[in-house]
């Protein structure tokens, strides 16, 4: 059985940089919502993670 990390934050995509501080993962800045969704989709496919919406202009990609 291979060992994987679960429930781990892989990336943050935001149109609202003030609402993210620190973060142990890459933070991607987007200019508008459309671009944010596009980046999220691409990253989710690349990293095999799920996109979650924090409803404050921040999307996170999480590996479940």
């Amino acid at each position, binding site marked *: *059985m291979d060992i994987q990390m679960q429930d781990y934050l892989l990336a943050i995509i935001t149109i609202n940089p003030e609402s993210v501080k620190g973060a142990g993962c890459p933070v991607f800045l987007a200019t508008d919502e459309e671009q944010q*969704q596009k980046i*999220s*989709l691409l990253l*989710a*496919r690349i990293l*095999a*993670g*799920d*996109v*979650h*919406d*924090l*409803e404050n202009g921040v*999307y*996170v990609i999480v590996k*479940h």
Partner: protein
Amino acid sequence: MGVVTGFVDRWVILKNDHRHYPTYPHGHLTHLALGFIAASLGAVAVPAIAKPDYVAVTFLVLAAQQFRDIRTMERDTLTSLDENKLVVRGNDYIEGIAMVFETRNYLVILTAMITSGVTFLWGWPYALAAGIVCIYISTKIMTGSHMGDIAEVQPGTVHFNGALLMVEDVVIKNVGLPQTREKILKEGIGVVIKPNDDDARLTLQSLGQRMAIIHDVVSILGSKVDIGEDELKPMARINLDKGYLCLFMVTNEHDLECLVDIIKRVPVLETTRGTTLKTYYGRKAAD
């Protein structure tokens, strides 16, 4: 006579059903062969004791021990198969299936033994009747209860509260992308499973039972899941206050009626069955 009825018994109770197991024809042959050995063992037991040939009886006991390995064999096979599944069967389900396979061989031994005993005492016409009765009993007693017996299964509405995917009033998960949300609203199906009593409530709370429900539905209706794309993965979450289970899934075949029927026919796993009402304090607390 004993061998024949025992073998027929194994054949009758060997079901190749929607759970994709055992596979046909090789998986079947393995179990039929083992069933034949079990039947032979049971059949020769009575004459061996009657003779009396105690050495033979000792060997029979030794041989019967081998059937304990069947459970291990089934468990190993199913566990290794599970590793490559996108929607897993779960350990509780595997344990349940393995247990059933082992027990069925003991049933075969018993059937063969009874039939051969009846042949020995009263002749074959009686044995034929005894064999048929035994086969009938083994098909009946080995059927456990199903989800439909312990709970009420109803369709539930799938909707969003902001980014939260909900089935009725239970939060399933957070879905970020608007296009995924649209797809879920269009194709997602929600089901509410309401337990009939406190026993059923405990059963539904166990993860093993939830995985069994999801596995059975997915193995029939399919699921829109792929490697790295598990946003549409089926999920079951419980309402902690009221005890009902809400199930969300996006199936290949969008048929709610079939889905409800499939869930009703999911077996209640022996390892997850709640038994609180059988205890004194459980009954007292349930008042």
